[in-house]
């Protein structure tokens, strides 16, 4: 039997078993059984994805499984890449989740509902990329949305009123936006299937060129907007910074590292593979969405002081970078320059892989902090390095990946992306000459800001002294959480040092998408060479060189310092008393200079409220200073929209006066009007 098929079947069986056990078993056994099944399921997905990346193919169809259409699955290298990413993340996060859920009692994360849904959600993450017909894809896509919604709502039970309200709002935003996207997707794919004369992907591929350009454009725009919503692209992102912080951290990790990727998968699969590429404006749309997300996401992350909200905005940024790659690939392929096109797509896919590894680790570490301190507010953390050394190390490793500097694992993807954009400049045309440099600028800006963001997250949360009692009382996480994070850390390190191992798989995935010619990358364990462009990179040597340079500077410094022993003395405090923890940098104060720089873009709201002592203008009793940086896109775009919708809804109430006769009358007159129309029309 085909190894991919066997692994997929095993994953499905494990999901069924895990779901049943998670819903049936009591207490701790439930968490253990569900988590173990999910971890095994992830391993199966990783195996299936790896086999597909090595060149395997698998197709299966079960005509009787779904009414009318049947279920169709097919795995090629492109599906395999996303299956492998999802499988790897599921494996590590499930191991992490066992310890995480066990610390939360029988409600919330450890409840029957959450533990029963968990394996099913994991399975849908694996199977969505394997779907090979419109109805199978939509079914799995919707199942993924519903199960993740249930998991986002898991913390509703057993929380305080404020938490319940926040979870409810997050669930509402997520549910509404994801279903808005589903409606778009349904319309787009339905139009496509109707025009192509079949709903399996094979039929769509065959029938795509028979569609008129207008129809193709409508299909692409509808589906791309739907997929961009799932990917958290600005301006369709508001669900993301709400749902990720409120969901249990293991769920956030899975959503942020595996689920949002499928938005990019959808655009690649539909745009390149099924529609066979398209005109320039499609890809400009994708590229524009990506650039906007990258800059807006990282700016908001720089302003956020909620750790998980920061990570969520960073997800928006990274998916934006991947979308830039996809858009650039389409643009270059349309211009006929297929070698950089393939490279841009490979860069986008590589960035997805890297992002999955470090973002899952970041969310897991944030979950550890949350579990140990109950805090998400960076301003109240601090001093966790001494109390949670392993978590701190993991967070630092992942943050290194996120800042896209060597030797972190995020570096190579962005380097490749920049390479492809710079080489793409050779393509003639005003649009490319204008757009590609702007995209390069957006990437550079977001990379620079990302450095500030993660310095802030790491430094403020883990270094200095604790700024609140819970942060001072933190203890290290249990072994299973550390084991899960360890797996992710190993993946991050491997991706950072020997990314060349992925080269052939990436080339196959790009070839499966049909975006460009020839393998864009080649490489062994040590070097990544760009086949069509004269460039090469050896991350391992870069890392070694960096390590050597650091050692060259640090070792003599240490030696010198040891020679002159320092005496312990009290710090000179200008007579002001010993410095307290409240004087140290907080996330807000760290971000303040950046906020000044981007004042016009961010439009922060400041509010100073001075209460003087009675009958005196000079003596002040209290000064209250409040500042918030609202998400401007959300503020300007969604607030008016929501007001309009609720206005229409209020007006519509006058249709429902409470009179039964009126309600019956609506039905009656509707029926009579319909019949009249029928009678007249004949």
């Amino acid at each position, binding site marked *: 039997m085909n190894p991919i098929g066997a692994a997929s079947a095993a994953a499905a069986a494990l999901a069924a078993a895990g779901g049943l056990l998670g819903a049936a078993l009591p207490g701790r056994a439930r968490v253990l059984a569900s988590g173990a099944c999910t971890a095994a399921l992830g391993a199966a997905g990783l195996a299936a994805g790896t086999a597909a990346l090595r060149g395997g193919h698998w197709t299966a169809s079960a005509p009787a499984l779904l009414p009318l259409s049947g279920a169709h699955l097919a795995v090629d290298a492109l599906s395999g890449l996303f299956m492998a990413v999802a499988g790897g993340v599921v494996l590590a996060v499930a191991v992490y989740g066992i310890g995480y859920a066990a610390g939360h009692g029988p409600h919330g994360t450890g409840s029957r509902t959450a533990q029963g849904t968990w394996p099913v959600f994991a399975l849908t993450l694996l199977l969505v990329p394997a779907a090979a017909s419109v109805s199978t894809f939509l079914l799995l896509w919707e199942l993924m949305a519903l199960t993740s919604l249930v998991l986002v709502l898991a913390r509703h039970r057993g929380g305080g009123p404020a938490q319940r309200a926040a979870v409810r709002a997050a669930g509402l935003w997520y549910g509404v936006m994801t279903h808005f996207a589903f409606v778009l997707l349904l319309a787009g794919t339905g139009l496509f299937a109707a025009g192509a004369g079949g709903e399996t992907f094979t039929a769509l591929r065959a029938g795509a060129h028979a569609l008129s350009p207008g129809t193709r454009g409508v299909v692409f725009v509808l589906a791309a907007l739907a997929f961009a919503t799932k990917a958290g692209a600005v301006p369709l992102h508001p669900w993301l910074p709400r749902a990720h912080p409120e969901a249990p951290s293991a769920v956030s990790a899975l959503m942020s590292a595996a689920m949002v990727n499928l938005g990019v998968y959808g655009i690649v699969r539909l745009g390149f593979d099924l529609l066979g590429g398209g005109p320039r404006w499609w890809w400009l749309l994708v590229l524009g969405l990506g650039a906007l997300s990258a800059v807006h996401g990282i700016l908001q992350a720089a302003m956020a002081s909620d750790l998980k909200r920061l990570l969520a905005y960073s997800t928006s940024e990274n998916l934006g970078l991947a979308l830039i790659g996809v858009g650039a690939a389409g643009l270059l392929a349309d211009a006929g320059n297929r070698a950089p096109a393939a490279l841009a797509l490979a860069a986008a896919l590589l960035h997805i892989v890297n992002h999955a590894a470090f973002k899952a680790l970041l969310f897991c570490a944030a979950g550890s902090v949350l579990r140990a301190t109950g805090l998400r507010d960076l301003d109240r953390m601090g001093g966790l390095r001494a109390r949670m050394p392993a978590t701190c190390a993991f967070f630092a490793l992942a943050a290194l990946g996120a800042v896209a500097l060597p030797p972190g694992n995020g570096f190579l993807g962005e380097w490749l992306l920049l390479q492809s954009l710079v080489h793409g400049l050779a393509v003639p045309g005003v649009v490319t000459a204008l757009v590609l440099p702007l995209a390069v600028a957006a990437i550079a800006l977001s990379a620079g800001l990302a450095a500030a963001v993660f310095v802030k997250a790491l430094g403020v949360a883990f270094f200095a002294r604790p700024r609140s009692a819970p942060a001072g009382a933190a203890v290290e996480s249990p072994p299973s959480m550390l084991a899960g994070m360890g797996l992710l850390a190993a993946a991050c390190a491997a991706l950072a040092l020997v990314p060349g191992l992925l080269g052939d798989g990436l080339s196959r995935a790009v070839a499966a998408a049909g975006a460009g010619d020839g393998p864009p990358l080649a490489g062994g364990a040590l070097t990544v060479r760009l086949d069509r462009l004269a460039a090469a990179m050896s991350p391992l040597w870069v890392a070694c060189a960096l390590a050597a340079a650091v050692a060259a500077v640090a070792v003599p410094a240490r030696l010198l310092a040891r020679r002159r022993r320092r005496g312990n003395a009290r710090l000179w405090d200008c007579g002001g008393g010993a410095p307290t923890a409240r004087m140290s940098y907080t996330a807000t104060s760290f971000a303040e200079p950046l906020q000044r720089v981007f004042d016009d873009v961010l439009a922060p709201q400041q509010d100073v409220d001075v209460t003087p002592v009675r009958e005196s203008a000079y003596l002040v009793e209290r000064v209250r200073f409040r500042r918030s940086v609202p998400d401007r896109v959300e503020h300007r775009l969604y607030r008016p929209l929501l007001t309009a919708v609720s206005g229409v809804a209020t007006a519509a109430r006058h249709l429902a006066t409470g009179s039964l006769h009126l309600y019956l009358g609506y*039905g*009656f007159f509707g*029926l009579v009007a319909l*019949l*009249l129309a029928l009678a007249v029309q*004949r």
Partner: protein
Amino acid sequence: MGDTLYTQLLDLACGAFLLAAVVVLWLRQLASIVRVFALQGVALAAVAALLGAHEGRWELLAVAVGIALLRAGLLPHLVRRALSAPAWPAHPGHHYEEDVSEARETRPLVNVAASLLSAALLTLLSYAVARPLVELNPTPATRALPVGLAVVLTGFFTLVTRRRALAQVVGFLLMDNGITAVAFLAASGVPLIVELGVSFDVLLAVLVLRILTTRMRAAFGGTGIDDLRELREW
């Protein structure tokens, strides 16, 4: 049975069927309305029996007997029982005086003359709408198809314009009679099992409505549907 006789009898039964629906709109006494409804049940059973006899499908006769028992016997009986049930005192100690108008449909939303006119228009409409269906296969049975449709529309009209809950129950049952008639005339009889299922459904609906009516009387002292307006959410 000769074709002419069959056609004439079928037309007679369908005429009685339609007439009963119109008379329901005309009458005001709820007791008389129920009586007319029972007569309509007999007419429907006659349609079924005629179809069965003409086509030699004897199981249709069993269906006809079932229809007669249910629609001319059981359902009118249940509605009548609800009509004559003594009103429950709303609260102990609060003695509720029998509302005289409860037995009458005193003020329908559309008066009787306009109702009869509307029934005529609705019948015209159903003839116009059903024309393409009749042209498909013009047999005596299909020719009578618009009658069933007209009864459905008249029943719906009753449901919309009458205030008393029991008058509305009768309107609902008229609609169901009409649907059954359309099924018979268009498909020359439905299988026994389908008819059984539909009848059982209707029976349950009437039982539920009867309980609701009694409860409404207990709670509000009457079954005027307008009283329910206060139940809305805002």
